[in-house]
């Protein structure tokens, strides 16, 4: 009989083989399945980043709920931002199945240790920005998210199925705002163009750095956490969005944009990756504000959470019937 260390190693080899076999057979990995630590860590990072993006993502549009210009628009926007809170919750719930409590993930966000989608560090300066976010940002998000419905981790895939289904109206409502503005008064048309001018490039950057620079691409593709590369998804977004801009009668702010008939793809000018990394590092227009707002909500809510916990403790929540 071999010594303990060798024995452990062979057990872990066996588990790793079983894990890889599940991946190869496209079977879902479930919370109770053995998984490599690196897979678990990568997932927690990716899912919690995704959750943080939903929660921080409520802020730029949330700004405009109180100022939406009609009751119908207000209801739609409120329902959309509410969905984002819900989607954040679905995702935290998926991440918690990996053993990391939500409070820990939220604390990492507040401490500036966790990332969220950089797009939300840009400001919503006028009403058309709400339209541009729905059309471009949600449009890009859907392209990113649909493949994840088939990712290897069960709870993440299932959360994403639900999210994609619910978000199907998000992009449309944004396009609808843009359409109304683009076909409205000259002033409204100018608002729509201004919003496109400011949101186009950040939306294109949402797919992350080019494949040549992306650090996580290869491993995540092998683990089936990611199914397409950043550049593949980005191209899909550009190809579907350029004609929509034309239909809106708006101009994409890129003088180098051209149709490549041979490749049957649009080609764009060069992306300002310096800006991308600058915003990620924390120097975007709203990084400080966004995080501060979340921290304030959390800190100002502390007494409420304590009160409810204390009330439950007094009442013996476990035995209390609802």
């Amino acid at each position: 009989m071999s010594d303990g260390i060798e024995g452990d190693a062979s057990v872990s080899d066996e588990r790793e083989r079983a894990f890889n076999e599940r991946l190869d057979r496209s079977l879902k990995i479930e919370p109770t399945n053995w998984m490599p630590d690196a897979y678990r860590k990568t997932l927690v990072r990716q899912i919690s980043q995704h959750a943080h993006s939903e929660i921080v993502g409520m802020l730029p549009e949330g700004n405009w709920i109180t100022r939406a210009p009609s009751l119908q628009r207000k209801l739609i926007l409120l329902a959309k931002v509410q969905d984002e809170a819900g989607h954040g919750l679905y995702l935290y719930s998926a991440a918690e199945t990996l053993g990391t409590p939500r409070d820990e993930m939220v604390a990492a966000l507040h401490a500036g240790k966790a990332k969220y989608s950089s797009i939300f560090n840009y400001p919503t300066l006028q009403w058309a920005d709400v339209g541009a976010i729905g059309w471009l940002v949600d449009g890009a998000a859907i392209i990113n998210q649909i493949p994840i419905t088939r990712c290897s981790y069960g709870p993440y895939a299932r959360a994403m199925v639900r999210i994609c289904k619910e978000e199907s109206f998000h992009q449309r409502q944004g396009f609808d705002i843009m359409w109304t503005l683009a076909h409205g008064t000259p002033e409204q048309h100018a608002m729509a163009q201004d919003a496109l001018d400011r949101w186009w490039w950040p939306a294109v950057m949402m797919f992350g750095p080019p494949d040549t620079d992306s650090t996580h691409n290869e491993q995540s593709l092998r683990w089936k956490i990611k199914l397409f590369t950043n550049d593949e998804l980005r191209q899909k977004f550009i190809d579907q969005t350029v004609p929509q801009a034309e239909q809106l009668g708006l101009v994409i702010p890129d003088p180098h944009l051209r149709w490549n008939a041979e490749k049957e793809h649009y080609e764009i000018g060069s992306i300002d990756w310096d800006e991308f990394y600058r915003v990620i590092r924390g120097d975007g227009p709203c990084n400080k504000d966004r995080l501060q707002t979340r921290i304030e909500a959390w800190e100002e809510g502390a007494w409420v959470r304590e009160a409810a916990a204390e009330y439950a403790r007094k009442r013996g929540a476990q035995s209390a019937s609802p």
Partner: protein
Amino acid sequence: MKKKHEWPQWEVFVRSEAGLAHKHVGSLHAADARMALENARDVYTRRNEGVSIWVVKSDDVYATDPSESEEFFDPSEGKSYRYPTYYHVPEGVKHL
């Protein structure tokens, strides 16, 4: 390290329509069972997805261990005599 204001986690099960079984949809946090039900209603049935909700504290859920799944589940394979198609019904016999 648990702080005293951390709310417990609850698993949420929703019956989507009368006659169907409750199905697990996800989890949430709530201070007590009543709040868990209310939060489940708001978080998981915004689109009319439910007619009934169960919540269970996540700590109270016990699951089978995948490493034991062979001994747990394989023995029920190969028992074809549990299915009606196993049996030959003589011609002309009805209501069987």
